[in-house]
C-alpha cells in the first residue's frame, strides 16, 4: 500500500506529461464511449483490492531478490469465481483477460496482457494509469518512454524487438526534436535512479503496462479504441450543446416543427396531449403477453433450427443444399410437409410461401372470391413501388377492384368506399387503399382462410406432400397445440 502511494507522486509528474496534452481540453473523460465499462471494471478492481476480502497481494522472495506486491493468476481466478456472478472458470478467465487487456492488472514480466490460471505473478495498475484517467497518450510521450528505457542499463528494461522498431520509427518521425525528447528521457531516468529499489520495480512495471495498453504488442487488441459512431458524438458534444426540448425523451411527435416548441407553454401543452393519448391506449397485461410468446414458441419450436433439428439436415452442418431446395420448390410433389404445416399457423404464413399463395388463390377461385387476394396482393405491391409508378398503379387498382363497373369488384363497406373515393380525388398516395386492404384481409382471414384449412384441397395437399415426420398424426397434435393457448 505504502509503495503504491509514494509511487503516485512520480506518476503524477509523469501524468502531467502523458495526459497533459491529451484531449487538448476538448472533452472530459466522461465523454469517452468506453467510460461506462471502465467504471464497471474499476468497481470490480476496488473490491479485488480490498485489504481483507480482496485478492491476496504479497511480496515474494526469490533467490537473492524480492518481487513486490504481486498475486497469482490462480488466486485471482478463484477470487473471481467466489465473488463475481460468473458461470464457470472459462468465463472468469475471459473476464480476467479483458480486465488485464485494459491494463487494470498485468503479468509482471510479459508484454502480452492476459491472465493464466496458474502461478504466474500479476500486479495491480496504479489508478492514475487507468484508461479512464488518461486519454490517448501522444507519440512524443511514447518516444520519451522508450528512449528512457535504453538509458537504464537493466536487463528487465531492455526493449523488446517491436519496441526497438517503434523507437526507430519514432526517431525518424521526430528527428528534429529528438534532442528535446532525449533530454526529457534523461531527466526522467535521473529521477528514477534515486528511487528505492522495490518501488522502482513496481513503478517500472506499471509504466510498461500502461504502454502495453496504449501501444500493444503486435497481434494484441488495442482496447482503448472506440466505436467510431460514438466517437463522432464525442466530438460533436464538445463543439455544440444539443438542443434540449422540454419534452422528456426529446420530441414525441415529429409533426410538430421546432418552431412550434419554442415556448415552454406550447411544449407542455403538447406533452399533455401526448400523455392523454397514451392514457387512452388500451394495454395488455404482462401475464397475457407472455402467454402469447409461449404459444408462439410452442407453435414454431419444431421449425426453429436451434431448438429442433430439421428433418432434412441443416445445410450448414451437412454441407448439403437439399434443405434449401425443398424450401424453394414449387413442385407440389416435392414440397416437404413441414412447409404445408406452417400454412395452417396463420394466413400470413400461408401467403408468404409462394406455393401457399398459389394454392390459396386456386381455392379462392373455386369459391368465386379470387379478387380478394388479387386486390390484397396489388395493394402490397403498391406499397413497395417506385414513387414514379405509384399514381398509375393507384388508378389501375381503383378501376380494377373498386370503381363502379369494375372488372373484379371487391366487397368493402360503403364507409370505406366513401373514404377511398374522397382520397382518390385528392392526389392519392400509396396508402390510399389501406382501410380497404385491411378490411379485405380480415375477410379472407376469418372466412376463406379457415374454410381453406378445413377443405379437402388443403388436407389432400398436406397428405400428398413428402413426409418424413410422423405425418398426419403430428399435424393433428400440432392443431391441438395451436388451440390450447387461445
Amino acid at each position, binding site marked *: 500500500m505504502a509503495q503504491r502511494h509514494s509511487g503516485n507522486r512520480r506518476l503524477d509528474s509523469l501524468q502531467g506529461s502523458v495526459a497533459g496534452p491529451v484531449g487538448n481540453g476538448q472533452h472530459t473523460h466522461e465523454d469517452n464511449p468506453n467510460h*461506462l*465499462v471502465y467504471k*464497471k471494471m474499476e468497481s470490480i478492481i476496488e473490491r479485488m483490492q480490498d485489504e481483507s476480502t480482496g485478492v491476496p497481494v504479497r511480496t515474494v522472495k526469490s533467490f537473492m531478490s524480492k518481487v513486490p506486491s504481486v498475486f497469482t493468476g490462480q488466486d485471482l481466478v478463484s477470487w473471481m469465481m467466489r465473488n*463475481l456472478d460468473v*458461470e464457470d472458470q472459462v*468465463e472468469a478467465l*475471459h*473476464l480476467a483477460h479483458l480486465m488485464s487487456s485494459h491494463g487494470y492488472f498485468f503479468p509482471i514480466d510479459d508484454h502480452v496482457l492476459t491472465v493464466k490460471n496458474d502461478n504466474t505473478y500479476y500486479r495491480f495498475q496504479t489508478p492514475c494509469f487507468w484508461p479512464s484517467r488518461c486519454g490517448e497518450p501522444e507519440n512524443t510521450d511514447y518516444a520519451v518512454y522508450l528512449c528512457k528505457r535504453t538509458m537504464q542499463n537493466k536487463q528487465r528494461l531492455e526493449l523488446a524487438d517491436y519496441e526497438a522498431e517503434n523507437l526507430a520509427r519514432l526517431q525518424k518521425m521526430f528527428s528534429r526534436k529528438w534532442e528535446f525528447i532525449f533530454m526529457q528521457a534523461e531527466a526522467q531516468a535521473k529521477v528514477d535512479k534515486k528511487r528505492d529499489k522495490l518501488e522502482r520495480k513496481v513503478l517500472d512495471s506499471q509504466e510498461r503496462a500502461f504502454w502495453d495498453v496504449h501501444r500493444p504488442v503486435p497481434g494484441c*487488441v488495442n482496447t482503448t479504441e472506440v466505436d*467510431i*459512431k*460514438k466517437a*463522432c458524438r464525442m466530438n*460533436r458534444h464538445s463543439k455544440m450543446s*444539443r438542443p434540449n426540448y422540454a419534452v422528456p*425523451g*426529446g*420530441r*414525441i411527435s*415529429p*409533426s410538430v416543427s421546432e418552431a412550434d416548441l419554442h*415556448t415552454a*407553454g*406550447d411544449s*407542455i401543452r403538447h406533452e*399533455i396531449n401526448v*400523455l392523454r393519448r397514451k*392514457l387512452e391506449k388500451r*394495454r*395488455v*397485461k*404482462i*401475464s*397475457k*403477453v*407472455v*402467454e*402469447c*410468446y409461449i404459444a408462439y*414458441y410452442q407453435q*414454431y*419450436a419444431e*421449425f426453429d*433450427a436451434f*431448438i429442433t433439428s430439421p428433418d432434412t439436415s*441443416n*445445410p*450448414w*452442418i451437412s454441407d448439403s*443444399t437439399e434443405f*434449401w431446395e425443398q424450401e424453394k420448390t414449387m413442385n407440389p410433389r416435392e414440397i416437404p410437409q413441414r412447409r404445408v404445416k406452417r400454412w395452417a399457423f396463420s394466413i*400470413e404464413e400461408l*401467403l408468404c410461401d409462394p406455393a401457399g399463395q398459389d394454392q390459396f388463390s386456386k381455392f379462392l377461385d373455386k369459391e368465386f372470391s379470387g379478387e380478394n387476394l388479387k386486390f390484397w396482393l396489388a395493394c*402490397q405491391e403498391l406499397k*413497395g413501388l*417506385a*414513387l414514379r409508378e405509384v399514381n398509375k398503379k393507384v388508378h389501375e387498382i381503383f378501376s380494377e377492384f373498386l370503381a363502379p363497373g369494375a372488372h373484379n369488384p371487391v366487397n368493402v363497406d360503403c364507409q370505406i368506399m366513401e373514404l377511398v373515393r374522397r382520397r382518390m380525388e385528392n392526389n392519392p398516395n400509396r*396508402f390510399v387503399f*389501406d382501410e380497404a386492404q*385491411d378490411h379485405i384481409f380480415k375477410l379472407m382471414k376469418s372466412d376463406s382462410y379457415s374454410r381453406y384449412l378445413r377443405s379437402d384441397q388443403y388436407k389432400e395437399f398436406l397428405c400428398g406432400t413428402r413426409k418424413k415426420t410422423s405425418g398426419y398424426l403430428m399435424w393433428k397434435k400440432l392443431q391441438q397445440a395451436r388451440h390450447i393457448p387461445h
Partner: protein
Amino acid sequence: MATEALRAENPDSIEALSREAEALKARLVEEKAKLNDVDSCVIGQRLESIQNFNIKPRRTLKGHQGKVLCMDWSSDKRHIVSSSQDGKMLIWDAFTTNKEHAITMPTTWVMACAYGPSGSVVACGGLDNKCTLYPLSMDEDPVTKKKAVATHTSYLSCCSFTSSDHQILTGSGDSTCALWDVESSQLIQSFHGHAGDVMSIDLSPTETGNTFVSGGCDKMAMVWDMRTGDCVQVFDGHESDINSVKFYPSGDAFATGSDDATCRLFDLRADREVNCYKKDSIIFGCNAVDFSISGRILFGGYNDYTINVWDALKGTRMTILYCHDNRVSCLGIAPDGTSLCTGSWDYTLRVWA
C-alpha cells in the same frame, strides 16, 4: 407571437400546465403498474429448459482488412453482405465462403449495409453521410452502376430495404430516420423524434405492418408509422445508448441491446418493458441482437468478444459463445433460421449452426 402574449397575461398558466402534465404522468405510471401483474420470467419457468443446444462455428469468412462493422443476409439464405472499416463491402456466398464481389467505397468506416429483397442490389453508407446502392451483376463492376440515394447531415448508422428494392429506410447520427425512393433519390418520409444519434432500425415483420422500430443514443426506442412519419410509441428504460433493435418474430415485441450491458424485451401491446436480460458478470455493452425464429432464443453480440445466448422466455442465459478475438459488432439470424452470422472487429465473420 400569440403565445408570447398569452404568457405575459397569464403567468400561472405554465405552472398549471406543468401540474397537469405531472398528474397525467403519475396516472400513466399507475396505469402501467396495474398491468404489471406478474414477473414475465415466472411464467417462463413452466417451460422446460432447452436441451441439446449445440451450436458451433461452421464457416469463417476471412477477407476484410479492417473491423467488420455491419452484415446482412440475402433472402436466398446463403449470401451475406458485410462492410468494414477498410472501406470495403464484400458479398459472400457464405455457404462456400467464396467472395463474389468486393466493392470499394470512397470512404472508410462503412457502418451500414443491407441486402435488397431481390438479392440483386446492396446498399451501404457510413461516414460519408450517404446511402449508396450498388446493383450486383456478374458482368459489370457494381461501382460503375452505383447510385447515391440518401443523404443525411451526419453519419449513416443503419439502413434497410422495405418490402421491395424500390425503397430504403435509413437511420443516422443526425438523430433522424428517413424513407427514400430509390429510383428518384427522393425523400418519401422523415422521422424526427430521437434526441440523440439513431443507431439501429428494424422493420416490422408483419405482412401489413407499416411500422418500424428505432433505437438510439438518447436511450429511447421508438415505434414509427411509416405512412405518416408519426412516432406511435416510445419506450424507455435503458441506462445508456441503445445499439440494436430487433423485432420479435411475431412482430408484437422487440428486443434491444445497449451499452448498459443489458438486452431488454419491450412489448407493443403491453406498452412497456417485459424482460431484462442481464448478469452482474456481463459488464460490456451489447452491439447487436437477434431472435431465433421461434422467438425463444435471443442472441446478443457484446463488446467483450462474446455472444451471450439468452432464453428469452425464462430470462436466463443459456450459454456463452467464445470465438471472436475482438468486439462482436453485428449479428443476424439467417432468414430461414438455420444459422447465425456474427461479425467482429477481429476482421472476420463467422456462421454458426
